């Protein structure tokens, strides 16, 4: 079983099929095409998107519906095609697509989640895309309440 050295989490054992391919990378990280999703039981619902190629590159993520329980995905047909999705565009367990918001922490400010451009992963194809939504009411800097302002998900 291959072991990935990571700067933030130490070595992580993984299998080849755990790797998620981002054919276009992520905006600002277009060269990074392969990521692992890692989680720790104590950190749920937080998950981390760890680059397979750059050991220091990782993103803090939250399922969009842990932030906004009735989140509606409005990904473009091109983005859905990119991950090989043929069903309805719907964020949530019933749909089968995994939708994660990347969390940003700035010094002295409340953390924010990028709900405008969620990371959308199709577990069947193990392909992902950051869906830049243009017809969405959600902000790229949605403030995360500390202490459960959003329905107690913290």
């Amino acid at each position: 079983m291959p072991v990935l050295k990571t700067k933030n989490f130490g070595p992580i054992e993984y299998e080849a099929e755990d790797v998620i391919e981002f054919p276009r990378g992520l905006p600002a990280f277009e060269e990074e095409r392969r990521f692992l999703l890692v989680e720790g039981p104590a950190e749920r619902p937080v998950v981390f998107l760890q680059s397979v190629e750059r050991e220091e590159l990782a993103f803090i993520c939250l399922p969009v519906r842990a932030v906004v329980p009735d989140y509606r995905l409005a990904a473009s047909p091109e983005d859905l095609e990119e991950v090989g999705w043929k069903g309805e565009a719907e964020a949530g367990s019933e749909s089968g697509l995994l939708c994660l918001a990347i969390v940003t922490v700035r010094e002295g400010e409340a953390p924010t989640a990028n709900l405008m451009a969620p990371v959308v992963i199709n577990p069947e194809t193990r392909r992902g895309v950051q869906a830049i939504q243009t017809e969405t009411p959600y902000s790229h800097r949605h403030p995360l309440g500390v202490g459960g302002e959003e329905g107690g998900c913290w």
Partner: protein
Amino acid sequence: MLVIRRRAGEAVLIGDGIEVRVLEAAGGRVTLGITAPREVLILREEIRLAAEENAAAARAVTPERLRSILERWRGGAGSSSSVSKIFRPLR
């Protein structure tokens, strides 16, 4: 910032060979038609916002900050040992 008012059907010209025409303006939305040389990159602003957020988000992840963030968010439940040892691939 230069501010120019235009009605539907009118255009502005930028430099040599770039034309931005207002095709439709209704209901708080504007449809633009852009003519530009092939080498000019045209992006919706959302792409740049996402790129900036991603760059800032990547900077946020250091072991020390991760620890303090998790402790703050989880009311102290995210101990440092779990950060280094318990992570595993999510199926």
